[in-house]
């Protein structure tokens, strides 16, 4: 492997000294990418900064065209040249060596990358259910465990459903190939394709195109299970169904903001449940966020989907395909939807199903396919509520997410042959510093109880539903944030949500409405950020059922995909 030692990794190589504008050869997929045999992808080589006279691409010493049996599309333009082959696939497992040589204006530019290709395994699981708690790092799990199960004399009174998945456990690295800290599009894309991408992208590698839909694609799990095994696909979330995590299961776009487009891509799934009908209604309908006249709800119906717009309609929905959209925008969070029920917050959406109800319906419908199913269930607002620094609302959504896992475990116990994975896509910088109470008259930071003073919190779940009745008990948790804008902190639950900071021009300024009697915590991230931001921390993954043994130790996030396709024995041709 001397050839690789000599060169830089990452597929971005500069081998020729040059003047002002640096010419760069970019090979996509990137160096060290891993593939399943038969998994389709677009290969693209760009020479950036020069008009190429010639681009030569060898795979294992063979001309690319004859290696893949596909004629490349070659573009030679001033400042950018491209060599692209769409829809190619590797047929044999093993290592693949790619050598690129581009000539421009008498100079030669070279790049070498290496790929790994894995072959199919014997099928162990009929179904896979992937639970993604968005932003649900290790601490989010623990906060939910404390609230939901309680702790007595230092021992927990019980564990979360996700913590009872014990056949496999791993810590996942979450970075994309562009940056240390990822976003939900990029990270969900790693689970859905086995390939890293860049922030705000899904199912693609990033080329130079300004068109977000023109970047080289990688086949995703929804496409693969249908094509290779005739399985059914479901996506369930509490956010807009076109938001990053569910979108990454089915769509390919450099920009997650292409939600009008993503809504149409949801036709790749058989069961689609969540919020966000605003992306499905024609622009003439009040409340629509479409920029065209397409009525996707009618298009889905015409393709055989039953439509449900409320919890009652979901319960009544029949058939093998369901589109359920329960809010124009993101669904409300559990605390607001099921406990507080403030009409100003719900804004008329008084009959939204819970995540466990949606999960149960999805499993009921999808399990009708004898070829099996792939289902992704997302707890979306665990993340969204941490962004606005409301750990209590986030925790109740984590508990709700955990209840959805209980539904899947129940199904797996009855029907077997189901791999259940529960993980997060990235973390948030929260930590439990101790507990908080004002019993002795102290307030603010003086009332944060550390070490021996951190007596156990007094959350009570009297009805045993797993959700404490009161999110603001006498002794609560002191949850603090590592990465935040200027904000006001009072360590208390806020019955009415308020963002931590609001924008004044380009600068985020602490929002006094969040905690009128709170203390100002000066921000520690750029003033352009008005919310708490993601953290680069590894995230835990718990696995149960056939194929769960794949998950152990510390792994790259792309391995979630390979664990899934291995369990399903996928062998796309």
């Amino acid at each position, binding site marked *: 492997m001397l050839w690789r030692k000599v060169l830089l990794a990452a597929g971005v190589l500069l081998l020729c000294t040059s003047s002002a504008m640096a010419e760069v050869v970019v090979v996509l997929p990137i160096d060290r990418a891993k593939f399943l045999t038969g998994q389709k992808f677009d290969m693209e080589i760009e020479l950036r900064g020069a008009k190429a006279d010639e681009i030569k691409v060898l795979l294992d010493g063979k001309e690319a065209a004859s290696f893949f049996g596909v004629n490349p599309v070659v573009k030679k333009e001033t400042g950018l040249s491209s060599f692209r082959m769409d829809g190619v696939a590797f047929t044999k497992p093993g290592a693949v060596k790619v050598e690129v040589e581009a000539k421009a204006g008498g100079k030669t530019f070279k790049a070498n990358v290496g790929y790994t290709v894995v072959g199919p395994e014997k099928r162990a699981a009929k179904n896979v259910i992937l639970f993604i708690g968005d932003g649900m790092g290790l601490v989010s799990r623990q906060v939910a465990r404390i609230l939901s199960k309680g702790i007595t004399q230092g021992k927990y009174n019980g564990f979360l459903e996700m913590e009872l998945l014990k056949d496999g456990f791993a810590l996942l690295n979450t970075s994309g190939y562009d940056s240390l800290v990822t*976003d939900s*599009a990029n990270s969900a894309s790693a689970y859905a394709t086995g390939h890293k991408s860049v*922030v*705000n992208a899904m199912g693609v590698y990033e080329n130079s195109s300004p068109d977000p839909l023109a970047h080289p694609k990688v086949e995703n799990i929804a496409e693969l299970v249908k094509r290779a095994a005739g399985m059914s696909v479901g996506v369930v979330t509490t956010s*807009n169904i*076109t938001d990053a995590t569910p979108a990454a299961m089915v769509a390919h776009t450099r*920009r*997650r*903001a292409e*939600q009008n487009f993503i809504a149409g891509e949801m036709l790749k799934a058989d069961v689609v449940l969540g919020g966000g*009908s*605003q*992306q499905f*209604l024609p*622009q*003439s*309908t*009040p*409340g*629509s*966020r479409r*920029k065209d006249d397409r009525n996707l*709800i009618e298009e889905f119906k015409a393709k055989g989907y039953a439509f449900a*717009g*409320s919890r009652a309609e979901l319960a009544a929905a029949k058939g093998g395909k369901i589109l359920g*959209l*329960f*809010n*124009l*925008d*993101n669904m409300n969070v559990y605390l607001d939807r099921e406990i507080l029920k403030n009409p*100003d917050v719900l*804004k*008329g*959406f008084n009959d939204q199903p819970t995540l466990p109800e949606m999960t149960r319906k999805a499993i009921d419908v999808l399990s009708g396919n004898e070829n099996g199913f792939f289902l992704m269930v997302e707890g979306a607002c665990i993340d*969204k509520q941490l*962004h*606005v620094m409301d750990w209590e609302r986030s925790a109740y959504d984590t508990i709700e997410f955990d209840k959805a896992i209980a539904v899947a475990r129940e199904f797996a116990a009855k029907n077997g042959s189901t791999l259940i994975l529960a993980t997060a896509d990235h973390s948030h910088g929260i930590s439990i510093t101790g507990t908080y109470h004002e019993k002795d008259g102290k307030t603010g930071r003086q009332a944060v109880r550390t070490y021996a003073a951190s007596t156990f919190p007094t959350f009570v779940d009297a009805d045993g539903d797993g959700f404490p009745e009161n999110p603001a008990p006498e002794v609560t948790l002191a949850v603090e944030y590592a990465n935040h804008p*200027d904000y006001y902190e009072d360590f208390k639950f806020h019955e009415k949500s*308020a*963002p*931590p*900071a*609001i*924008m*004044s*021009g*380009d*600068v*985020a*300024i*602490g*929002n*006094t*409405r969040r905690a009128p009697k709170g203390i*100002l915590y000066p921000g520690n991230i750029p003033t*352009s950020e*008005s*919310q708490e931001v*993601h953290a680069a921390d590894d995230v835990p993954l718990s696995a149960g059922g056939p194929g769960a043994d794949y998950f152990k130790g510390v792994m790259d996030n792309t391995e979630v995909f390979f664990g899934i396709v291995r369990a399903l024995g996928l062998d796309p041709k």
Partner: protein
Amino acid sequence: MTEERGRSRPRKNRAGFDFPKIIPSKFLSLKFNSSKFFFSGPKTAGALWALVLFLTLFFLGGRPAQAAATAAKTLKFGEMYGGVSSLGIVLSDKLKSLAGQAVVMEGFMAPPLKPTLDFFVLTRVPMSLCPFCSSDADWPSDIVVVYLEKPVTALPFDRPIRVEGRLELGTKTDGETGFVSLVRIYATRLREAGD
């Protein structure tokens, strides 16, 4: 709930603002040249903001006494919609009955992209995001687009404002920005709420 993480569209620096000609430069220097002023937080800056707002609106709005005489009907955010479901929003009878008429609404001016505005978005609560910098998927559904007779600079971010003007309903796409709106007010008058 930033739609595009970390890659919001570049915004012009405050230093690069073009100020409308209707505001004399001595007030601009008060408003924009002191970085201390901007970072001193809402409490300490409150009095200054109030002064700036008053002066801005005075020059913008012209003759308060005359404007106050119009018989504009009050419209609240909570009164705009008669019903909402996944299949869309139903406009309230009150909103529909006020179409084409003079109305008064109170709300907050969303942080704008452009330093000078010929329209802005009025929201029920202060926005935590620069709405034009993120995808329009981040917008709340109950917003009102306010078109202005004369361009203004952004008003203070955290003070309720009162907008008076003619109400217009129906989907409309702004020619310049592509922003789609459903409820609009063609404003004849802006002032700080509670005056």
